[in-house]
Protein backbone atom coordinates (compact mmCIF):
# COMPACT_ATOMS: atom_id res chain seq x y z
CA UNK A 1 0.00 0.00 0.00
CA UNK A 2 1.10 3.55 -0.64
CA UNK A 3 -0.22 6.33 -2.82
CA UNK A 4 -0.15 7.12 -6.49
CA UNK A 5 3.49 7.18 -7.66
CA UNK A 6 4.70 6.45 -4.15
CA UNK A 7 4.82 2.74 -3.41
CA UNK A 8 5.08 1.30 0.08
CA UNK A 9 4.83 -2.33 1.06
CA UNK A 10 3.67 -4.21 4.14
CA UNK A 11 5.19 -7.60 4.70
CA UNK A 12 2.28 -9.70 5.74
CA UNK A 13 1.05 -13.20 6.52
CA UNK A 14 -2.07 -13.91 4.50
CA UNK A 15 -3.95 -16.85 3.06
CA UNK A 16 -2.53 -17.62 -0.35
CA UNK A 17 -5.80 -18.05 -2.14
CA UNK A 18 -7.53 -14.88 -0.93
CA UNK A 19 -7.62 -11.62 -2.82
CA UNK A 20 -4.90 -9.18 -1.98
CA UNK A 21 -7.56 -6.73 -0.76
CA UNK A 22 -8.97 -9.20 1.76
CA UNK A 23 -8.08 -8.92 5.41
CA UNK A 24 -4.71 -10.49 6.29
CA UNK A 25 -3.80 -12.71 9.19
CA UNK A 26 -0.87 -10.71 10.57
CA UNK A 27 1.53 -7.97 9.56
CA UNK A 28 5.12 -8.96 10.03
CA UNK A 29 7.14 -6.09 8.59
CA UNK A 30 7.34 -3.32 6.03
CA UNK A 31 9.49 -2.24 3.08
CA UNK A 32 9.95 1.22 1.59
CA UNK A 33 11.42 0.88 -1.93
CA UNK A 34 12.14 4.62 -2.35
CA UNK A 35 15.42 5.70 -0.76
CA UNK A 36 15.23 8.30 1.96
CA UNK A 37 17.38 11.42 2.57
CA UNK A 38 20.39 9.32 3.55
CA UNK A 39 19.94 7.09 0.50
CA UNK A 40 18.59 4.18 2.59
CA UNK A 41 15.77 1.85 1.73
CA UNK A 42 14.16 0.99 5.06
CA UNK A 43 13.03 -2.54 5.82
CA UNK A 44 11.47 -3.77 9.07
CA UNK A 45 11.02 -7.41 10.11
CA UNK A 46 9.46 -9.08 13.16
CA UNK A 47 11.87 -12.03 13.19
CA UNK A 48 10.21 -13.82 16.10
CA UNK A 49 6.87 -14.00 14.34
CA UNK A 50 8.53 -14.89 11.03
CA UNK A 51 10.22 -17.82 12.78
CA UNK A 52 6.89 -18.86 14.25
CA UNK A 53 5.17 -18.83 10.87
CA UNK A 54 8.05 -20.59 9.10
CA UNK A 55 7.82 -23.30 11.73
CA UNK A 56 4.11 -23.64 10.90
CA UNK A 57 5.07 -24.29 7.26
CA UNK A 58 4.35 -21.14 5.35
CA UNK A 59 5.25 -20.25 1.74
CA UNK A 60 7.54 -17.33 1.04
CA UNK A 61 7.08 -15.17 -1.99
CA UNK A 62 10.22 -14.29 -3.95
CA UNK A 63 10.49 -10.60 -3.02
CA UNK A 64 10.13 -11.35 0.67
CA UNK A 65 12.61 -14.22 0.44
CA UNK A 66 15.11 -11.90 -1.26
CA UNK A 67 14.71 -9.24 1.41
CA UNK A 68 15.13 -11.75 4.20
CA UNK A 69 18.25 -13.08 2.50
CA UNK A 70 19.71 -9.58 2.20
CA UNK A 71 18.90 -8.94 5.85
CA UNK A 72 20.97 -11.98 6.84
CA UNK A 73 18.15 -13.96 8.43
CA UNK A 74 17.96 -16.49 5.59
CA UNK A 75 20.51 -17.53 2.96
CA UNK A 76 20.89 -15.11 0.06
CA UNK A 77 18.29 -15.76 -2.63
CA UNK A 78 19.59 -16.84 -6.08
CA UNK A 79 17.64 -13.99 -7.64
CA UNK A 80 19.82 -11.51 -5.81
CA UNK A 81 22.90 -12.98 -7.50
CA UNK A 82 21.06 -13.08 -10.80
CA UNK A 83 20.03 -9.42 -10.72
CA UNK A 84 23.52 -8.50 -9.53
CA UNK A 85 25.36 -10.10 -12.43
CA UNK A 86 22.80 -8.86 -14.94
CA UNK A 87 23.28 -5.33 -13.67
CA UNK A 88 27.03 -5.80 -13.93
CA UNK A 89 26.77 -7.05 -17.50
CA UNK A 90 24.53 -4.14 -18.44
CA UNK A 91 26.87 -1.64 -16.81
CA UNK A 92 29.85 -3.18 -18.69
CA UNK A 93 28.03 -2.97 -22.00
CA UNK A 94 26.98 0.60 -21.38
CA UNK A 95 30.51 1.61 -20.49
CA UNK A 96 31.76 -0.19 -23.62
CA UNK A 97 29.19 1.61 -25.73
CA UNK A 98 30.19 4.94 -24.20
CA UNK A 99 33.84 4.14 -24.92
Amino acid at each position, binding site marked *: *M*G*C*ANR*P*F*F*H*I*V*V*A*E*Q*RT*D*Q*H*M*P*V*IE*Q*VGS*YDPLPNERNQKLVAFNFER*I*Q*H*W*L*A*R*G*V*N*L*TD*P*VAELLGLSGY*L*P*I*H*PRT*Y*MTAWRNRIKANEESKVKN
Partner: protein
Amino acid sequence: MSLMRQGLVIEKLVVGLHRQRFAPAAAPNLVVRWRKPISLGTAPSKLFRVPQRPQIPEDELKEIRRLFKNYNTQMKSIRAWFAEEAKRQEAVTAAAVAGATGEEAEFQRCLQINEEWNKKVAAERQVRLAAEKAKLTDKILTDLEQDELQKSKRIAEIQQMVEREKDLSSHYITEENIDQAIEEALSQEVNYNFAIDREGNYYHGFSMTPTTSHS
Protein backbone atom coordinates in the same frame (compact mmCIF):
# COMPACT_ATOMS: atom_id res chain seq x y z
CA MET B 1 -8.40 -21.86 6.19
CA SER B 2 -5.60 -24.34 5.53
CA LEU B 3 -2.56 -23.17 7.37
CA MET B 4 -0.29 -24.85 4.87
CA ARG B 5 -1.55 -22.54 2.12
CA GLN B 6 -0.74 -19.28 3.82
CA GLY B 7 2.03 -17.18 2.42
CA LEU B 8 4.04 -14.12 3.19
CA VAL B 9 2.95 -11.66 0.52
CA ILE B 10 3.68 -8.07 -0.20
CA GLU B 11 0.54 -6.06 -0.40
CA LYS B 12 0.72 -3.17 -2.75
CA LEU B 13 -1.49 -0.71 -4.46
CA VAL B 14 -2.87 -2.25 -7.63
CA VAL B 15 -4.38 0.12 -10.14
CA GLY B 16 -6.95 -1.87 -12.02
CA LEU B 17 -9.50 -3.45 -9.73
CA HIS B 18 -13.13 -2.49 -9.38
CA ARG B 19 -14.26 -0.07 -6.75
CA GLN B 20 -16.62 -2.78 -5.47
CA ARG B 21 -13.68 -4.59 -3.85
CA PHE B 22 -13.32 -3.72 -0.26
CA ALA B 23 -10.36 -2.12 1.37
CA PRO B 24 -7.62 -4.25 2.99
CA ALA B 25 -7.30 -4.23 6.74
CA ALA B 26 -3.83 -2.70 6.46
CA ALA B 27 -5.09 0.25 4.38
CA PRO B 28 -8.66 0.99 5.33
CA ASN B 29 -9.15 3.97 3.02
CA LEU B 30 -7.71 2.33 -0.10
CA VAL B 31 -10.00 1.73 -3.09
CA VAL B 32 -9.23 1.22 -6.80
CA ARG B 33 -11.06 3.27 -9.39
CA TRP B 34 -11.25 1.48 -12.71
CA ARG B 35 -10.57 -1.79 -14.47
CA LYS B 36 -11.75 -2.50 -18.04
CA PRO B 37 -14.73 -4.90 -17.81
CA ILE B 38 -14.05 -8.36 -19.20
CA SER B 39 -17.27 -8.20 -21.26
CA LEU B 40 -15.79 -5.42 -23.44
CA GLY B 41 -13.13 -7.77 -24.74
CA THR B 42 -9.55 -7.12 -25.74
CA ALA B 43 -8.68 -3.88 -27.56
CA PRO B 44 -7.59 -4.19 -31.27
CA SER B 45 -4.11 -2.91 -30.50
CA LYS B 46 -3.66 -5.69 -27.97
CA LEU B 47 -5.44 -8.55 -29.76
CA PHE B 48 -2.48 -10.30 -31.44
CA ARG B 49 0.15 -9.65 -28.85
CA VAL B 50 2.53 -12.57 -28.48
CA PRO B 51 4.53 -12.32 -25.28
CA GLN B 52 8.27 -12.76 -25.82
CA ARG B 53 9.82 -15.73 -24.07
CA PRO B 54 12.94 -14.71 -22.15
CA GLN B 55 16.07 -16.15 -23.76
CA ILE B 56 18.56 -17.08 -21.06
CA PRO B 57 22.04 -18.29 -22.06
CA GLU B 58 22.93 -21.90 -21.16
CA ASP B 59 25.71 -21.16 -18.67
CA GLU B 60 23.52 -18.67 -16.85
CA LEU B 61 20.78 -21.27 -16.58
CA LYS B 62 23.25 -23.77 -15.16
CA GLU B 63 24.44 -21.30 -12.58
CA ILE B 64 20.87 -20.38 -11.63
CA ARG B 65 19.90 -24.03 -11.17
CA ARG B 66 22.94 -24.71 -9.02
CA LEU B 67 22.19 -21.70 -6.84
CA PHE B 68 18.55 -22.67 -6.46
CA LYS B 69 19.40 -26.26 -5.52
CA ASN B 70 21.67 -25.06 -2.77
CA TYR B 71 19.17 -22.47 -1.62
CA ASN B 72 16.30 -24.93 -1.46
CA THR B 73 18.33 -27.46 0.48
CA GLN B 74 19.32 -24.79 2.97
CA MET B 75 15.74 -23.54 3.28
CA LYS B 76 14.47 -27.05 3.93
CA SER B 77 16.90 -27.56 6.75
CA ILE B 78 16.14 -24.12 8.22
CA ARG B 79 12.42 -24.80 8.19
CA ALA B 80 12.89 -28.20 9.81
CA TRP B 81 15.00 -26.64 12.54
CA PHE B 82 12.43 -23.91 13.15
CA ALA B 83 9.70 -26.52 13.43
CA GLU B 84 11.70 -28.52 15.97
CA GLU B 85 12.41 -25.40 17.98
CA ALA B 86 8.75 -24.50 18.01
CA LYS B 87 7.84 -27.99 19.25
CA ARG B 88 10.40 -27.79 22.05
CA GLN B 89 9.25 -24.33 23.07
CA GLU B 90 5.64 -25.49 23.10
CA ALA B 91 6.45 -28.45 25.35
CA VAL B 92 8.39 -26.24 27.76
CA THR B 93 5.74 -23.54 27.95
CA ALA B 94 2.93 -26.05 28.34
CA ALA B 95 4.72 -27.75 31.24
CA ALA B 96 5.48 -24.42 32.88
CA VAL B 97 1.91 -23.17 32.56
CA ALA B 98 0.47 -26.40 33.92
CA GLY B 99 2.90 -26.35 36.84
CA ALA B 100 2.27 -22.70 37.63
CA THR B 101 -1.50 -22.94 37.82
CA GLY B 102 -1.49 -26.20 39.77
CA GLU B 103 -4.28 -27.67 37.69
CA GLU B 104 -2.71 -31.11 37.65
CA ALA B 105 -2.70 -31.39 41.45
CA GLU B 106 -6.27 -30.14 41.64
CA PHE B 107 -7.31 -32.70 39.06
CA GLN B 108 -5.66 -35.53 41.01
CA ARG B 109 -7.43 -34.42 44.19
CA CYS B 110 -10.74 -34.40 42.39
CA LEU B 111 -10.03 -37.89 41.08
CA GLN B 112 -9.42 -39.12 44.62
CA ILE B 113 -12.68 -37.64 45.88
CA ASN B 114 -14.51 -39.19 42.99
CA GLU B 115 -13.02 -42.58 43.80
CA GLU B 116 -14.30 -42.35 47.40
CA TRP B 117 -17.79 -41.41 46.23
CA ASN B 118 -17.77 -44.28 43.78
CA LYS B 119 -16.83 -46.74 46.53
CA LYS B 120 -19.61 -45.51 48.83
CA VAL B 121 -22.21 -45.67 46.15
CA ALA B 122 -20.97 -49.10 45.07
CA ALA B 123 -21.40 -50.43 48.61
CA GLU B 124 -24.95 -49.12 48.79
CA ARG B 125 -25.64 -50.58 45.39
CA GLN B 126 -24.34 -53.99 46.45
CA VAL B 127 -26.70 -54.05 49.46
CA ARG B 128 -29.65 -53.06 47.32
CA LEU B 129 -28.85 -55.61 44.67
CA ALA B 130 -28.52 -58.39 47.25
CA ALA B 131 -31.93 -57.53 48.75
CA GLU B 132 -33.51 -57.44 45.30
CA LYS B 133 -31.97 -60.78 44.44
CA ALA B 134 -33.32 -62.39 47.64
CA LYS B 135 -36.77 -61.02 46.90
CA LEU B 136 -36.65 -62.29 43.37
CA THR B 137 -35.63 -65.80 44.41
CA ASP B 138 -38.46 -65.89 46.96
CA LYS B 139 -40.94 -64.77 44.38
CA ILE B 140 -39.77 -67.37 41.90
CA LEU B 141 -40.02 -70.15 44.47
CA THR B 142 -43.52 -69.11 45.51
CA ASP B 143 -44.56 -68.91 41.87
CA LEU B 144 -43.28 -72.41 41.26
CA GLU B 145 -45.19 -73.68 44.27
CA GLN B 146 -48.32 -71.97 43.07
CA ASP B 147 -47.90 -73.56 39.67
CA GLU B 148 -47.57 -76.98 41.27
CA LEU B 149 -50.69 -76.36 43.34
CA GLN B 150 -52.68 -75.22 40.34
CA LYS B 151 -51.56 -78.24 38.37
CA SER B 152 -52.54 -80.66 41.10
CA LYS B 153 -55.92 -78.92 41.52
CA ARG B 154 -56.59 -79.16 37.86
CA ILE B 155 -55.65 -82.81 37.83
CA ALA B 156 -58.00 -83.42 40.77
CA GLU B 157 -60.84 -81.65 38.95
CA ILE B 158 -60.28 -83.71 35.86
CA GLN B 159 -60.19 -86.86 37.93
CA GLN B 160 -63.50 -85.91 39.46
CA MET B 161 -65.05 -85.31 36.06
CA VAL B 162 -63.78 -88.62 34.81
CA GLU B 163 -65.18 -90.39 37.88
CA ARG B 164 -68.57 -88.75 37.37
CA GLU B 165 -68.68 -89.74 33.76
CA LYS B 166 -67.68 -93.27 34.70
CA ASP B 167 -70.55 -93.41 37.16
CA LEU B 168 -72.98 -92.00 34.67
CA SER B 169 -71.83 -94.31 31.93
CA SER B 170 -73.86 -97.08 33.41
CA HIS B 171 -76.98 -95.08 32.50
CA TYR B 172 -75.86 -94.27 28.94
CA ILE B 173 -78.11 -95.36 26.14
CA THR B 174 -76.05 -97.43 23.72
CA GLU B 175 -76.88 -99.54 20.73
CA GLU B 176 -77.83 -102.46 22.92
CA ASN B 177 -80.01 -100.37 25.24
CA ILE B 178 -81.71 -98.26 22.67
CA ASP B 179 -84.66 -100.52 21.99
CA GLN B 180 -85.26 -101.09 25.70
CA ALA B 181 -84.90 -97.37 26.43
CA ILE B 182 -87.46 -96.48 23.76
CA GLU B 183 -89.93 -98.96 25.14
CA GLU B 184 -89.43 -97.64 28.67
CA ALA B 185 -89.82 -94.05 27.56
CA LEU B 186 -92.98 -94.79 25.68
CA SER B 187 -94.45 -96.85 28.49
CA GLN B 188 -93.72 -94.38 31.24
CA GLU B 189 -95.96 -91.40 31.64
CA VAL B 190 -94.74 -88.19 33.15
CA ASN B 191 -97.35 -85.95 34.56
CA TYR B 192 -96.44 -82.26 34.35
CA ASN B 193 -99.68 -81.22 35.89
CA PHE B 194 -98.19 -79.94 39.13
CA ALA B 195 -97.62 -76.69 41.03
CA ILE B 196 -94.66 -75.71 43.08
CA ASP B 197 -94.20 -73.43 46.05
CA ARG B 198 -91.26 -71.53 47.48
CA GLU B 199 -89.94 -74.43 49.58
CA GLY B 200 -89.84 -76.69 46.55
CA ASN B 201 -92.88 -78.79 47.43
CA TYR B 202 -94.74 -80.24 44.50
CA TYR B 203 -98.57 -80.33 44.51
CA HIS B 204 -99.61 -82.97 41.96
CA GLY B 205 -103.04 -82.85 40.40
CA PHE B 206 -105.60 -81.10 42.55
CA SER B 207 -104.27 -82.41 45.91
CA MET B 208 -103.48 -80.03 48.73
CA THR B 209 -100.85 -82.31 50.28
CA PRO B 210 -97.34 -81.50 49.14
CA THR B 211 -94.65 -83.90 48.08
CA THR B 212 -90.98 -83.16 47.74
CA SER B 213 -90.37 -85.46 44.80
CA HIS B 214 -91.22 -84.93 41.20
CA SER B 215 -93.51 -87.82 40.59
